[in-house]
């Protein structure tokens, strides 16, 4: 196990140099006998990503606030030294992650955004919704603070999001797709890894081409042709619902929606195969 934890520290050091060695090292870990270690590494990576905008001062400040709440002696008894090493390694990973991000921001010439920031941010959580209200209510409240033409920025668990209250301004941004405005590369990577290489992940000329197909297949004229199928699966869904309620059974609506949707998409013309023959 000692070797394992020293690897943690090594991993943290590698992150400062470059991203690529970490991947190589991670692949190396995945073949070692410590089951689940690579998975933990991956989880840590996701966690550190969420701390990308967190200042080191915030971490120190937090530790200064909470350290007196934990009696050191009982902490020492409860937690084995190896776990302490792991915690230290984790802390080092966080700090290194922050330093990497800062370095990258500097090298790419990124500057602070000009938008007004939503007040009342908390450490770690940022402007995340409080317990008493939904996210929608919170966003509505923010929008009321900045008016109909307002643009403001909120920090949601370490990630910065810019909100636009004006539809026309939003359409200006959308009109810059796909060359100037691009989607999240992380989402694209995740979807591509699952071989979902579709319109949601495409960029540039691919996006233009694929969008043309998808939009044409979903235009008014074509949607008209789908209507009989929609009516068919809806009537069957309702029939099933009625049968369930007559028998006093619980009807799992969500599960049945999936079947309806899939079959309306896969239905062969001429009703070669009967849709929804055995579902729910």
């Amino acid at each position, binding site marked *: 196990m000692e070797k394992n934890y020293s690897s943690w520290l090594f991993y943290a050091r590698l992150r400062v140099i470059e991203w690529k060695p970490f991947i190589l090292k991670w692949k190396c870990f995945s073949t070692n006998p410590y089951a689940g270690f690579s998975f933990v590494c991956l989880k840590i990576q996701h966690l550190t990503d969420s701390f990308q905008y967190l200042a080191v001062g915030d971490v120190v400040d937090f530790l200064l606030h909470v350290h007196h709440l934990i009696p050191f002696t009982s902490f020492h008894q409860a937690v084995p030294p190896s776990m302490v090493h792991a915690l230290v390694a984790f802390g080092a990973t966080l700090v290194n992650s922050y330093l990497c991000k800062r370095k990258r921001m500097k090298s790419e010439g990124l500057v602070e955004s000009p938008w007004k920031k939503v007040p009342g941010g908390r450490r770690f959580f940022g402007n995340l919704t409080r317990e008493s209200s939904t996210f929608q209510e919170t966003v509505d409240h923010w929008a009321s603070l900045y008016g109909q033409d307002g643009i403001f920025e909120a920090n949601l668990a370490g990630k910065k999001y810019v909100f636009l209250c004006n539809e026309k301004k939003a359409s200006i941004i959308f009109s810059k797709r796909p060359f100037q405005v691009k989607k999240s590369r992380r989402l694209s990577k995740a979807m591509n890894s699952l071989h979902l*290489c579709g319109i949601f992940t495409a960029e540039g000329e691919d996006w233009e081409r694929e969008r043309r*197909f998808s939009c044409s297949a979903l235009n008014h004229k074509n949607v008209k042709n789908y209507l009989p199928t929609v009516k068919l699966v809806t009537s069957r869904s309702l029939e099933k619902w009625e049968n369930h309620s007559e028998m006093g059974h619980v009807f799992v*609506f969500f599960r049945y929606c999936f079947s309806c949707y899939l079959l309306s*998409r896969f239905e062969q*013309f001429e009703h070669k195969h009967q849709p929804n023959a055995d579902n729910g």
Partner: protein
Amino acid sequence: MLDYVEASTKSNSLLGHPYLDGGKGIIKKVNEHCLHAIAELKKLAKAVGGNESEKVKTSQSFLAKMLVLNKEAEAPLITDQMIGNMSTLIIAGYETTAVTLCSSMYAIAEDQTGLQEELAQEAMLIESIEEADLEKFATGLPCLRSFMYEVLRLKGAI
């Protein structure tokens, strides 16, 4: 495509559980269905001969329409791109549709102001659902339309 299926199968066998592979098993199944559906449609299009375009155009299948559009395009999509798009639309479409429907049902059930009766009365104004066309649904149900917009705003699936 075959490489991908092989890789997915390997990853499944390593983990030994269909839901612990990050969704690869499900995606694989959807992709296989897409591939099968494309092959079936192409076979059918060949069988019907000269009328294939019209037949597919008036069909009720999204995939069939995509295939016709692709055939007529100057720069068509390759099969993998087609499958990728289909899988994306299915997975994205099912989740959003199902969540929105469930949210709307929940909102109606929770409401205490007689919304359910109001929506039912409006729906009754359409004489025959079977004969109603898209315009009728789009313009003849303003209350339901507003309700759905509100559900999407407050409990949006995305």
